[in-house]
């Protein structure tokens, strides 16, 4: 197995030179040569689709079924859940997949399946990863990885000890438009980073109807203080990873504040949490709520030359008026947001521009989940590391665990990275 070469840091001078040259200034942010990207896999026919089994058929599992049907190199052949109702419901959506009520039965009856996706509740990940990695399988584990550091460490060690390709369900690092933004940030396009912000706002109670006390308890793990890492952990982890990836550093401490503000239904797990995650003296502010959709899900990297805003399938660059003009921006497509004008960042812009299809590139043609799954499967087939490693996910999860602890205790908490 060969490590993927890490893209070299790009100096701002090089960035401007590359951007201003070629393609008559139409494009674009320079694109690093990559050994493998999901985009480079599109249309490839020199490989067989890999058989995949999915464990966990809740909301995330259902979303994964949808994305797998669009991934040409994936063939969903088995699904597994201990909940009979969910398992039966999957029959309609994943019609050709064999259904199993336990992982043991799945492994025993379909030993030839070598790729497994884990989309079960967070606190159940560790034994599954350990079992599958020990059996030599390729494993994709949804994030956050775990609800405590001990389990995070164990999951990373299990992945390292296994012979398969392990990856994690964080959605930034394999996302083409986030990669474009990463290149802009890392090349100094925003110059000095002042602060970072992110939010995830949805209007949903997080309560799942079970129909019986036992099923209620099993399905409502997010609202159980003993089994959840709350909004800061379950949602924050994904966006903390964006900051950690953009800054290429780990957070040092965190403080958080929350409350039950939207749903007076007896819950004790906060439905609204604000988090300040510190990277030494640099602040990343995060807001999560179950009570409002305003602003939905987005991340911003705010710099002296401009701000990058990310929103799943879209990204924009809001340039300061006194920042130097970049060659590519003159012809770029823009979008108005009240008083601000964003330059739309486009993945694979050079290729699209050469085909005269630049505008068709606005907004990704697939969801961030698609790219995460596609990248891991491509990695498993080709024998490369996944773009999002278990180590990356363990670090982001550690930040999420610390943020949850800070929100519960009201104290500033040091972020301790797992020993991996």
């Amino acid at each position, binding site marked *: 197995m060969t490590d993927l070469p890490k893209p070299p840091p790009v100096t701002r001078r090089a960035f401007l030179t590359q951007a201003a040259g070629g393609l008559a200034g139409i494009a674009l942010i320079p694109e690093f040569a990559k050994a493998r990207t999901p985009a480079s896999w599109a249309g490839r026919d020199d490989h067989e689709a890999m058989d995949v089994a999915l464990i966990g058929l809740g*909301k995330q599992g*259902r*979303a994964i*079924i*949808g994305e797998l*049907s*669009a991934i040409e190199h994936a063939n969903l052949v088995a699904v597994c859940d201990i909940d009979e*109702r969910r398992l039966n419901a999957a*029959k*309609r*959506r*994943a*019609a*050709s997949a064999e259904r199993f009520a336990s992982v043991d039965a799945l492994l025993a009856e379909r030993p030839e399946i070598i790729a497994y996706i884990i989309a079960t509740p967070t606190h159940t990940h560790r034994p599954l990863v350990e079992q599958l990695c020990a059996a030599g399988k390729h494993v994709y584990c949804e994030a956050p990885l775990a609800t405590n550091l001990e389990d995070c460490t164990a999951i990373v060690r299990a992945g390292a000890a296994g012979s398969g390709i392990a990856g994690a369900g964080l959605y930034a690092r394999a996302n083409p438009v986030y990669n474009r933004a990463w290149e802009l940030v890392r090349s100094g396009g925003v110059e000095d980073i002042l602060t970072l912000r992110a939010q995830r706002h949805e*209007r*949903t*109670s997080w*309560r*799942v*109807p079970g*129909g019986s006390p036992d099923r209620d308890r099993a399905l409502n793990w997010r609202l159980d203080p003993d089994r959840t890492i709350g909004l800061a952990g379950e949602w924050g982890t994904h966006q903390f990873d964006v900051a950690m990836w953009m800054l290429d550093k780990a957070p040092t401490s965190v403080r958080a504040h929350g409350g039950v503000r939207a*749903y007076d*239904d007896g819950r004790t797990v906060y439905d609204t949490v604000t988090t300040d995650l510190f990277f030494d003296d640099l602040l990343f502010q995060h807001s999560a709520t179950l009570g409002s959709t305003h602003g939905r899900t987005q991340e911003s990297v705010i710099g002296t030359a401009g701000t990058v805003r990310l929103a799943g*399938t879209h990204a924009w660059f809001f340039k300061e008026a006194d920042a130097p003009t970049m060659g590519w921006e003159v012809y770029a497509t823009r979008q108005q947001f009240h008083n601000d004008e964003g330059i739309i960042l486009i993945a694979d812009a050079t290729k699209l521009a050469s085909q005269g299809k630049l505008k068709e590139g606005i*907004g*990704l*043609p*697939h*969801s961030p989940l*698609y790219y995460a799954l596609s990248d891991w499967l491509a990695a498993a087939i080709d024998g490369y590391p996944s773009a999002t490693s278990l180590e990356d996910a363990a670090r982001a999860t550690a930040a999420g665990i610390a943020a949850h602890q800070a929100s519960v205790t009201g104290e500033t908490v040091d972020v301790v990275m797992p020993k991996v």
Partner: protein
Amino acid sequence: MVERFAREAMGTRVEIVLPASADARAIAEHALDAITEWHDRLSAFDRASALSHINRDAHQRPVRVEGDLFELLARCAALMGASEGAFNPCLGRAMHQLGFRDDAPNSQQEPWSVPGMALDAGTQTVRLTDAAELDLGACAKGWALDDAAHALREHDITSAFIHAGTSTSVAIGSRPDGAPWRVRTPAPTGPITADLADCALSISAPHGRVIGTDDGPRTHVLDPRTGRPAIGADTALVIGPSAFATDAWATALLVLRGAPATTPTDLTHAVATQSGWTIGGRDTDLLHTEPPQ
């Protein structure tokens, strides 16, 4: 005592009304999630939707789709046949060209070719003809509401009402007080009131969406057989056991000038004003006509 829960989806406001209980919110959200998932998969405006994926690739090669999406497309194909082509889920490209997808209308119209699709049940794949792009605007709301109703029934809900932007609705049982769920809609011949219990209702009218063109106002309802604006009924109200069927037939009846050659088996009542066609009659105990105001 009932509670109301709503969400923006399918290009409109979707609302669920059900009896108040400790679990009402969780159950309603479960049903609304089903609608949101279909919205995400069937949106013609989202490049990342499953529908957009089909529209991008299914002209060149068969595109594999999930089992329930294939089931939806198969139901669409069956209804295309039953409606003699008056319902067609492949009008996306035409809607673009006519300016109903935020594009400028294309003044240079190509000769009309009826768009279509080919489904392969063995491989669960779909292919589109050259002129076709899927646009399920005439049936997606109904399909999603059927799924939401199923989600409610899964949790033993026996009384609820779901509607999407007032054009398609599903009644589960009767109201908690035992009376039917009552829907009142304007029509050129006077408001029509429908009393619903365990059935779906859809209403469609060509004036629901109109754009201005050099040739005057143009409605969003096309006759898929000619590519020209529909000239059938000016309002269609249909009732049946499935919201998918009522939604699709409500559009088809705007296209047909009279009754379909074969009476639809998936409708119990229909009123198509102007074309004068009815099933199950009006002024029955289910449908009442009020005098024009």
